C-alpha cells in the first residue's frame, strides 16, 4: 500500500534519549532483549524490529493468552454458534462480551453473543478428567439452544490433564448432527494471543469454510476478513459496500453467521482489515480456492476512500469505478464539514498509539487526517510483517514457540480452485493496489517517531514522561494510569463504549470523541487555586487568548506550540 504522506518530523533525539533511559533501568540481559524491540524511525529504510517473542516474566505486559486470541478474538464473535469454554470459571467469564462485538440475528433465539458458557471445572474434573463433563455440557447447550454449531475452546489445565477435546467434538458432531469444532488453544501456547488467532483460523478453515456452495448472481462478491464489528464498525463498512453494489458473502468474524462462513469460499475477493489476526486465513483461501486478498483500511476518510477505489480497481468494471467515485464524493461532502469543525479543536497535538496487532497502523493515519502527529506507535502481539511488511516473511525463522502452532499444508482444491490471472494481480500491484501484500505500519510512521513492540507498563510510563504526548491510545489496562498522569486516554480496543469509528460516518464519531478528550473543561480544574503557580496561570491565559487551543491537553507540563501538518 502506498504510504500516506508523512506527518511533520518529530524530534528524533527526544525519542533516542528516552529509550536510553528506559534501557538503563533494566538488568543487562533484559536491556539487551528489549533494545531489539524498539526502533527510532530514521531516514534509512529497512530498520528491523524484534517481535512475537516471549514476554519477559515479571514485566507487566498488555498481552493476553492463546485462549484470548482464539475464543476471545476470532471465534467468539460468531453470533449463532454456542461457544463453550472448557475450563474453570475465570476464562469463560473474562472473555464474555468484553470486546464489544456487535451482532444481530433474524431469529433472536439463535443469537448467542450475550452468553458465557463454561464447563466450570472443579477439583474432581482436574483429577479424573473433564471429558465427560464437557460432553454433557455440549449436549446441554444443544438441548437448550438448538444451535447450528458449537465451539469448544480449551483452557490451560485441559491440555495438561489430557482431555481430548477433539475427540469429544467428533463424537458430538456425529451424535447431534451439527457442526462441533474444538480448539486446543490452551493459554500457555505461543507467546501471546497471536497463537490463538492462528489456531482459530486453522479450525474455521478446515471445518467450516467450503462446506456449502452457492452461486451468486452478483459479480462483485467479497468477504471482509479481520473485521470484528466492535462498536458496529462492520455495519458501517457493510452499508458503504452494499451501496456500491458489492455482496458481502461473509464477515470473519464480526456479526458472522456460521452459514455465511461455510460459503465464504464462493467469494471472488477477500478484504483483509486486521492483517495480524486473519492473514493465515487469507493465505490459506488463496492457496486452496485461488481467492486473492486485498489489504484494506476502513479507518479514516482517506483510507476508506482509497480502499474503495482499490476494490473497484480489482473488479475493474467501469460502472463500478464510476459509482465508487460518486459515492465517495457524496459521503465526503456529507461528513467533511463536521470533521473540519472538530479538527479545529484537535490539530497540532501528538499521540502515542499502542493497540493490538493492526490497529496502531490504522489509527496513525486517521490521526494524521485530524492533524495529530504520532510520536510512538506499537503493537502488543504483532509479528515483524505487521511492522515491516510481508517482504520480511522469508527472513522470519520459526522458533520453538511458533513451531508449536500447526501450520496447515494447504493444496489447491481439485474442484473449487479458481485462480485469478497472475498478470492481472501484478498489474494491480504495480498500480499500488495492495493485492496479496501488506507493507506494514512502518511506511506511514513519521520519521523520528518510535516503533515499539510489546511495550510494557514501566516503559509506557517513562515514555509518557519523556515524549509528553497529548493523547495516549491503548486499552483499559493503561487508560487510568495515563489519565492519572494528566493525559487523556482513548481506548482503541473497546472505543470507550462508543463507535463505530470505521468508514465515513465512523470518522465523524471518532473526531467527536477525540475532540471531547482534548476539550473537556474538566482538565482545567486539576490544580486547586490554593496551589496555583503564577507562571502556569500566565501560560494558560496566553493560550486561552489564542482560541483556547490548549485548554485541554496536559497541565503537568509545558505545551509548546506545534506546527500543524495541514
Amino acid at each position: 500500500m502506498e504510504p500516506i504522506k508523512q506527518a511533520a518530523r518529530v524530534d528524533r533525539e527526544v525519542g533516542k534519549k528516552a529509550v536510553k533511559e528506559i534501557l538503563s533501568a533494566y538488568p543487562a540481559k533484559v536491556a539487551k532483549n528489549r533494545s531489539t524491540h524498539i526502533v527510532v524511525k530514521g531516514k534509512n529504510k529497512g530498520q528491523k524490529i524484534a517481535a512475537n517473542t516471549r514476554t519477559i516474566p515479571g514485566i507487566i505486559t498488555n498481552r493476553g493468552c492463546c485462549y484470548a486470541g482464539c475464543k476471545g478474538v476470532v471465534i467468539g464473535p460468531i453470533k449463532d454458534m454456542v461457544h463453550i469454554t472448557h475450563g474453570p470459571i475465570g476464562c469463560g467469564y473474562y472473555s464474555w462480551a468484553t470486546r464489544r462485538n456487535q451482532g444481530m440475528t433474524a431469529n433472536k433465539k439463535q443469537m448467542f453473543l450475550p452468553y458465557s458458557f463454561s464447563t466450570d471445572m472443579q477439583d474432581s474434573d482436574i483429577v479424573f478428567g473433564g471429558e465427560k463433563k464437557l460432553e454433557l455440557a455440549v449436549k446441554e447447550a444443544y438441548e437448550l439452544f438448538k444451535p447450528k454449531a458449537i465451539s469448544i475452546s480449551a483452557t490451560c489445565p485441559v491440555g495438561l490433564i489430557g482431555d481430548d477435546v477433539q475427540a469429544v467434538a467428533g463424537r458430538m458432531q456425529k451424535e447431534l448432527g451439527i457442526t462441533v469444532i474444538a480448539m486446543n488453544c490452551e493459554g500457555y501456547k505461543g507467546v501471546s494471543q497471536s497463537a490463538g488467532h492462528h489456531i482459530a483460523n486453522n479450525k474455521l478453515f478446515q471445518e467450516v469454510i467450503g462446506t456449502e456452495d452457492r452461486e451468486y448472481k452478483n459479480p462483485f462478491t467479497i468477504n471482509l476478513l479481520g473485521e470484528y464489528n466492535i462498536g458496529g464498525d462492520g455495519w458501517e463498512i457493510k452499508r458503504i459496500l452494499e451501496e456500491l453494489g458489492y455482496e458481502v458473502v461473509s464477515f470473519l468474524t464480526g456479526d458472522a453467521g456460521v452459514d455465511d462462513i461455510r460459503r465464504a469460499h464462493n467469494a471472488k475477493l477477500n478484504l483483509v482489515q486486521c492483517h495480524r489476526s486473519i492473514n493465515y486465513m487469507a493465505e490459506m483461501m488463496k492457496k486452496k480456492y485461488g481467492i486473492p486478498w486485498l489489504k484494506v483500511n476502513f479507518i479514516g476518510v482517506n483510507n476508506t476512500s482509497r480502499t474503495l477505489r482499490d476494490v473497484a480497481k480489482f473488479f475493474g468494471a467501469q460502472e463500478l469505478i464510476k459509482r465508487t467515485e460518486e459515492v465517495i464524493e457524496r459521503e465526503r461532502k456529507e461528513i467533511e464539514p463536521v470533521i473540519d469543525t472538530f479538527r479545529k479543536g484537535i490539530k497540532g497535538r501528538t499521540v502515542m498509539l499502542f493497540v493490538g496487532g493492526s490497529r496502531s497502523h490504522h489509527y496513525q493515519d486517521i490521526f494524521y487526517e485530524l492533524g495529530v502527529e504520532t510520536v510512538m506507535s506499537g503493537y502488543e502481539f504483532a509479528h515483524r510483517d505487521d511492522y515491516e511488511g510481508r517482504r520480511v516473511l522469508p527472513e522470519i525463522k520459526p522458533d520453538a514457540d511458533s513451531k508449536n502452532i500447526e501450520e496447515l499444508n494447504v493444496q489447491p482444491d481439485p474442484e473449487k480452485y479458481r485462480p485469478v490471472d497472475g498478470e492481472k494481480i501484478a498489474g494491480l500491484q504495480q498500480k499500488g493496489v495492495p493485492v496479496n501484500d501488506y507493507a506494514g505500519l512502518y511506511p506511514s510512521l513519521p520519521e523520528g517517531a518510535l516503533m515499539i513492540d510489546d511495550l510494557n507498563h514501566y516503559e509506557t510510563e517513562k515514555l509518557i514522561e519523556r515524549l509528553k504526548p497529548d493523547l495516549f491510545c491503548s486499552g483499559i489496562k493503561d487508560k487510568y494510569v495515563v489519565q492519572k498522569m494528566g493525559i487523556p486516554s482513548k481506548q482503541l480496543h473497546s472505543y470507550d463504549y462508543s463507535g463505530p469509528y470505521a468508514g465515513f460516518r465512523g470518522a465523524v464519531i471518532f473526531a467527536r470523541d477525540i475532540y471531547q478528550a482534548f476539550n473537556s473543561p474538566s482538565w482545567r480544574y486539576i490544580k486547586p487555586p490554593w496551589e496555583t503557580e503564577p507562571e502556569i496561570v500566565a501560560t494558560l491565559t496566553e493560550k486561552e487568548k489564542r482560541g483556547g487551543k490548549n485548554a485541554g491537553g496536559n497541565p503537568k507540563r509545558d505545551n509548546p506550540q506545534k506546527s500543524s501538518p495541514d
Partner: protein
Amino acid sequence: MPEHYATVNPCYHCMPLGAIFAAKGFEKTLTLLHGSQGCATYMRRHLARHFHEPVDVVSSSLNEKDAIYGGEENLKKALRNTCKQYNLQMIIVASTCLSETIGDDIGAVIKDVEKGVPGMAIPLVSVSTPSYQGSFSRGYWKTIKAALEKLSGKSSPCAQEGDKGRVEKPFINIIPGLVTPQDLRWFLRLGELLGIDFHLLGNYANTFDAPWETSFKLMPEGGSPISYLREAGAALATIEFSVVHPEADSPAVFLQQKFDVPAFRMPYPVGLDAVDKFMKVLTTFRGEKIPGEITENRGRLLDAMADAHKVLFAKKAVLFGESEYVFSVYRTLREWGMECPALVYGERESLLKEEIKEKGITFIDSGSMFELKEWINCNEVDLLLGSSVGASLSLEFGLPLLRRGFPIHDRFGAGRVLTVGYEGTLSLIDDTANMFAAEIHASFRRKLKESYLWKV
C-alpha cells in the same frame, strides 16, 4: 429445575482475582500470578473496568515449554524483574490453574529466592489459588491468611511487655472482606469516632480509588502498612466479616489459635441488626457509650425504614453475587419485610444454605444467571439486586436492577458506593425504595385506568 452440567453466565469469579483484592490492601504490594500471562491481563482488565483505576498485576508468563518442564525458572526471573522495577514491600505469589496443574512448588522457589538473591529482603507470600478449588472470595480469605501465617507475630511494643492490660495503643484487626473503597474509609472514620485504632487487613481504599494528584506515582499510595500483619498477633481482637465462608480459611480463627486473639466472625455490617451487633462488639473494647453521631445515624435508618415500608413490604428481590454479600443483603431486606425467593452465588465452598434457615428459598449455587433466568420465567420477581451481570435479565424481563457488589461494569463510581454501616444501609434502602417509587410514579395512573376504566 433441570440439571445443569455447564455454568451459563456466571456471577462469580476465579480464585486468583481474590488474591489481587487482598494484595491491593497492603502498602507497595504487588500480586504475581504464576501462570499464563492471560490470567493477569484478564484480571487487570476486569478490575480496571469496575474501579476505573489502574491495576498492576505481574505474571510469570509461562509458555508451552514451562508447562511441560515446570515453570519455576520463570517464577524466579519474574520475582527478580519485579523487584528491580518497583520499590516493593511485599509480593503475593498466587498460583493459577496452570501452575497448580503442572505442580510447581512455589514455596520452594520462594525459599530459594529469599536465600539466594541479595536484596530480596521483602516478604514473598505464597498462596495456592487454582480456580478449580474455589472462588474469588476464597482466594481473598486464603491470601490474607497466608500473609498472616508468614508474617504475623506479637512484635508490637506493647506485646513485648507481655501484658495486654498495659497496652499503650491498643488496636483491633479488621478484615473487611470484599467491600468498597468507600466502605474502608467509613471503617477508619468509625475508628476515629470511637477512639479505637482499627488495623485494616487490608485497606484498598486508596489503591483501588486513588484521587487525582499533581504528581504521578508508579505505585498508588495507600494500603495498610506491612507492620499491621507483623503485629496482628498483639491485637485486642480480630473482627472479620465472614460468616458463610468456611472456618478453615479464616484468618481470624488462625490468629485466635496461634496468638489467642479473640476472633469475631460477623456478617458485613449491613442492615440494622448486623450494624448493631458490630457496634455492640466494639463497645466491649471501648467501655463507653456509643457517640451521638452514630446513634443519630441509627435513628435516621429507622426513620427511613418507617418511611419506605409502604413500597418495600412483601416485594420480591432476587439477589446474586458473592455469597457473603448476598447473605448480608438478604438479612437486610428481610428486616424491611421484603422477600428474597431466589439467591444466586457461585462459591461451592459457601455455607449460605446452612446459614439461612428460612423455608421456600431457591438457592442457585452454580452461580449461573441462566438458571436464574429459567427460574424467573416461572416465578414472580420485583427487583434484581446484584452486580452488572444482571443487566441482560433486567432488559429482558423489564425488571429494575439495583447494582451492588462486584463487578459493576456498566456504571460509574463503583468504588464510591457506601454499603456498610447505618449510612451504607441508608443508601441501600433509599436506592431500593426509589426503584419502586420510580415505577409507581411512572405507571400509577396507567394501571388505574387499566384496572378501573377500560375494563368497564
